[in-house]
C-alpha cells in the first residue's frame, strides 16, 4: 500500500512539473485512439442504424422486384404472398421512374412508390415530419429531401405536374439515398435516385399520363427473417424474372457510402498512432537524462528496480489510458454523424463494442510503452552513482561531416552539426514531415478525382455525398495529422535546443550571434525534414494506390511539389519561435548549468 501511495505521489508531482508534456501526450493518444475507434466502429454503427430503422418501419425481410409489368407479373408477385414461408406482405405496388425538379430548378431522378393511404403491416415508412400520402400530395424520403433542401409545404415538379410535399419519411425497404432505385426500368441498371411516395392512384396516373417506365415490387415478411437466402433459392426457377433483395443485402448496401471512409479512418489512425509514438518518444528521450537522475535518486534511498520501472512507466501509462478514454468518448459522440452521412436512417448508433475499446486501449498502451521503454530500461540499468549525475546523450564524433560543415556559412555549419548530434531525432523529424506530406498528397489526390453528382445526368447540382463525406473525413484526418506533426516539430525543435544548449552557449562565447544560433536550430530541423518531404510524395501516392478502389487520377506534379515545399516552409516558420527563444537564453546561465 505504501509503495502504491509513493508511486502515485511521485507520478502526480512529475505531472504537475511537466504540464506541457502531459498535454502533448494526452492530445497525441486521444486523437489516435479516437480515429482508430471510429474506423473500427463504422460498420457496426451503420448496421445498428439500419436495424433501428427497420424495426421502426416494419421493414420487409425480402423485397421482390420485377423489371417487367403486366398481369402475369402482378399475379406472380401476388403468388409469393401465399408461400408458406411468408407471414405478411405489402403490395404488389408500382415503382415509377421519373425526374423531379425543385422550385430552385434542382433536378434529380426519382423513383415513386405507389402506396396505400393507410400503410399495411409490412414496410410502414416512418413519417418524421408532416403526414403520410394523400391524393395530390407526395412524401419525400428524408435523405433525398435533405439533399434537395426541400421540406414539408414545398412544391416539387414531376413530369410537368407540381406536387405539394406533405411529409418526410424514412424506410428500411430500400437502400439509403441515392440508391433508392433497387432495380432499373426493365430490370436494367439504375442511376442515382431519390425516393418519393404517392397514393396508388396518383402513381398510376403519373405513370400513364407521361408513359413513364414502371416496375413492380412486393414487400415480404418471412417466418424466419434470417432465412432470406433459402427463400431466394426456393424461388429461383420462375417464368417471370424476379429479383429478391434481402434485408441483409440492403444493410450491406448502406455501407457503400462509407466504402472509403473506413480506410481513411483506419489508415489515418495508423499514421496518427505513428505520430503519437514519435512525439512521445521525443518527449521521453528529451527527459531521459532527468529521468535517469531521478531513478538514481530513488535507488540511493533504497528503491528496487521494479519500483523505479513502475514509477517511470506509470506516468506515461496512466496518461495514455486517460487519452484512450477521452478518445473513446470522442469516437462515441462522433460516430453517429460519420456513420450516417445521409438522413435516410433514424436511431442512435450503438455504443462502442468491447473489441473496439480493447483495440483502442491496446493502441494507447503500445504508444506509451514502446516510446518510454528504452529510457526506462536505461534508468533502471544505470548504476546509482552514475545515474545521479547522468547528462544528456553524448553525440558521436563524425569527422567527415564536421569537415564538410566547416565549408558552410555559420547557420548551416551549426545546423549540420546539430543535425549530426542526434540521428535518431532526425529520423523522428523526417517521419513527422513525411506523414504531413502523405496526408496532403492523399488530400490532393482526393480533391483531384472527377466526380459524378447525384443530380440529373450526373449534374453536380446535387453533390456526390459519398465523395463529399470522404473529402470531409480526409480533411479532418489530415488536419489532425498535420496538427500532431506540427506539435511534434515544435517539441523536437525545443528538445534539440534544450539538449544543445551547452554547445550553443559555448558557440556564443566563441562569437556566434543569437541570430546564427536561431538559424542553426531552424536549419537543423529543416535538414531533418527534407528527406521526409521528399519521401512523403511517393509514400502518399503508394498508400493511396493500396487503399483506393478503382481508377484514380494523379494530381499534377506541381501540386505535389508545392505540398512538399509548403511543408518545409511551414516547418521553418514553426521552428523559428522555439529556436529564437532558445537562442536568447542567457549564456552565463547555460554555462553554469552545464558546470553544475
Amino acid at each position: 500500500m505504501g509503495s502504491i501511495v509513493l508511486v502515485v505521489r511521485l507520478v502526480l508531482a512529475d505531472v504537475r512539473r511537466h504540464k506541457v508534456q502531459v498535454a502533448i501526450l494526452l492530445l497525441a493518444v486521444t486523437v489516435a485512439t479516437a480515429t482508430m475507434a471510429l474506423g473500427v466502429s463504422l460498420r457496426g454503427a451503420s448496421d445498428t442504424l439500419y436495424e433501428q430503422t427497420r424495426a421502426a418501419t416494419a421493414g420487409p425481410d425480402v423485397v421482390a422486384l420485377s423489371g417487367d409489368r403486366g398481369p402475369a407479373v402482378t399475379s406472380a408477385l401476388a403468388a409469393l404472398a401465399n408461400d408458406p414461408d411468408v407471414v405478411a406482405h405489402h403490395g404488389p405496388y408500382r415503382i415509377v421512374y421519373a425526374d423531379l425538379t425543385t422550385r430552385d430548378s434542382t433536378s434529380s431522378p426519382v423513383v415513386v412508390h405507389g402506396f396505400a393511404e393507410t400503410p399495411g403491416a409490412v414496410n410502414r415508412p416512418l413519417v418524421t415530419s408532416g403526414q403520410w400520402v394523400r391524393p395530390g400530395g407526395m412524401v419525400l424520403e428524408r435523405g433525398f429531401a435533405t439533399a434537395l433542401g426541400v421540406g414539408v409545404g414545398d412544391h416539387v415538379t414531376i413530369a410537368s405536374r407540381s406536387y405539394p410535399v406533405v411529409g418526410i419519411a424514412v424506410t428500411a425497404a430500400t437502400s439509403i439515398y441515392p440508391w433508392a432505385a433497387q432495380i432499373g426500368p426493365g430490370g436494367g441498371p439504375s442511376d442515382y435516385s431519390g425516393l418519393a411516395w404517392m397514393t396508388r392512384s396518383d402513381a398510376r396516373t403519373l405513370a400513364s399520363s407521361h408513359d413513364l417506365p414502371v416496375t413492380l415490387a412486393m414487400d415480404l415478411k418471412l417466418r424466419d427473417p434470417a432465412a432470406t437466402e433459402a427463400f431466394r433459392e426456393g424461388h429461383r426457377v420462375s417464368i417471370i424474372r424476379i429479383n429478391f433483395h434481402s434485408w441483409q443485402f440492403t444493410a450491406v448496401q448502406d455501407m457503400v457510402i462509407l466504402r472509403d471512409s473506413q480506410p481513411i479512418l483506419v489508415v489515418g489512425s495508423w499514421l496518427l498512432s505513428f505520430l503519437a509514438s514519435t512525439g512521445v518518444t521525443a518527449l521521453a528521450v528529451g527527459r531521459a537524462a532527468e529521468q535517469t537522475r531521478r531513478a538514481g535518486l530513488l535507488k540511493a534511498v533504497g528503491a528496487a528496480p521494479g519500483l523505479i520501472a513502475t514509477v517511470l512507466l506509470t506516468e506515461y501509462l496512466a496518461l495514455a489510458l486517460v487519452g484512450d478514454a477521452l478518445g473513446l468518448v470522442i469516437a462515441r459522440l462522433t460516430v453517429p454523424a460519420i456513420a450516417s452521412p445521409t438522413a435516410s436512417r433514424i436511431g442512435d448508433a450503438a455504443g462502442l463494442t468491447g473489441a473496439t475499446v480493447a483495440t483502442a486501449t491496446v493502441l494507447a498502451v503500445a504508444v506509451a510503452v514502446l516510446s518510454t521503454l528504452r529510457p526506462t530500461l536505461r534508468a533502471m540499468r544505470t548504476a546509482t552513482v552514475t545515474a545521479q549525475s547522468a547528462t544528456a546523450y553524448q553525440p558521436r564524433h563524425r569527422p567527415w561531416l564536421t569537415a564538410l560543415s566547416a565549408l558552410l556559412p555559420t547557420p548551416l555549419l551549426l545546423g549540420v552539426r546539430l543535425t549530426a548530434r542526434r540521428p535518431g531525432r532526425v529520423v523522428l523529424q523526417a517521419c513527422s514531415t513525411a506523414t504531413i506530406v502523405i496526408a496532403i498528397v492523399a488530400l490532393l489526390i482526393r480533391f483531384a478525382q472527377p466526380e459524378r453528382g447525384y443530380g440529373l445526368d450526373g449534374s453536380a447540382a446535387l453533390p456526390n455525398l459519398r465523395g463529399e463525406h470522404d473529402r470531409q473525413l480526409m480533411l479532418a484526418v489530415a488536419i489532425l495529422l498535420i496538427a500532431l506533426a506540427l506539435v511534434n516539430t515544435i517539441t523536437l525543435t525545443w528538445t534539440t535546443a534544450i539538449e544543445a544548449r551547452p554547445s550553443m552557449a559555448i558557440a556564443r562565447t566563441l562569437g556566434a550571434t543569437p541570430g546564427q544560433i536561431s538559424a542553426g536550430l531552424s536549419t537543423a530541423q529543416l535538414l531533418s525534414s527534407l528527406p521526409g518531404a521528399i519521401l512523403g510524395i511517393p509514400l502518399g501516392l503508394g498508400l493511396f494506390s493500396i487503399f483506393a478502389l478503382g481508377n484514380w487520377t494523379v494530381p499534377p506534379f506541381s501540386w505535389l511539389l508545392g505540398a512538399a515545399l509548403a511543408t518545409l516552409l511551414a516547418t521553418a516558420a514553426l521552428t523559428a519561435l522555439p529556436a529564437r527563444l532558445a537562442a536568447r537564453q542567457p549564456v552565463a546561465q547555460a554555462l553554469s548549468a552545464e558546470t553544475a
Partner: protein
Amino acid sequence: MNVSSAAVQACGLVKTHGQGQSRVHAVDEVDLEVPQGQMLAVMGPSGCGKSTLLHLLGGLERPTDGEVWVAGRRIDTLSERALARMRRRSVGFVFQAFHLVEELSAAENVELPALLAGRSRRQARRRASLLLDRVGLAARARHLPSQLSGGQRQRVAIARALVNDPLVVLADEPTGNLDTAATLEVLRIFEELRSAGQTFVIVTHDERVAATADRLVSMRDGMFVDDTRLAGSHPRGLGGLIGLEG
C-alpha cells in the same frame, strides 16, 4: 574616462540578482582598468562575484549599472549581435569546466571560433594546428576531449581562446579542475603568452596562480577590497614561485 590605452575597463559596474529583500549585489560599484599586456588576477572566496565580473567584462551578462569598455569601445550598450562580433575579435574565454564541444576533436574545437569569425576552413585549420603545437598538443589534434586528460583539455581550451588573436583572454578558474602537474602546464603557457604581450584577466581562488600575475585584485561581497602590483614572472622560474617544483 580615458579609454585609449586600456584593453578592458569597467566603471561603476553593478550587477544585482533578484528583487526586493532577496536582491543580491553580485558586483557592487567596481572600477577597473586593465592595460594591454597586463595579467590581472582576481581573487576572492566563492560567491564573491568573481565569475560574474568576468562574464560582465566579456559581454556574457549585462550590467545592472555602470559601463564596460573593451578595446576602447563601450560594450554594455551593444546588441547581442554586436556583442557576439566583439567577442569574436577581442575576447577569448577559458573556463574551469573547459566547455569543449565533446563531439569535436581537439583541432576541430580550436578551429570553431575561427570558422564562426568567417575564416576559411584552410585558414582555420592552419591556425589551429599552429596553436595546438604551441600548447604542446600537436600529436593529440585528432583526439576527442574525452580522450584527453584535464590538463590537455584546458590547453585545448586555451588554444581555442587564442585562435582569433583576441585582445584579452578572460579565464575563469582555469586550473580549478586540474591536478598540480596540469596546473603547472597551464601556467607555463600563460607565462609564455604574457611574455608575448597577451592581456589576461584570470579569476581564481588559488594563491599560487595569482602569484604569477602582474597585478592582483581581491574581491569580497562584490567589491574590490585590495589592488596590488606584483613582480610578475619569477627569476627562479614559475614552478619555484608557486611551489610546484619537485
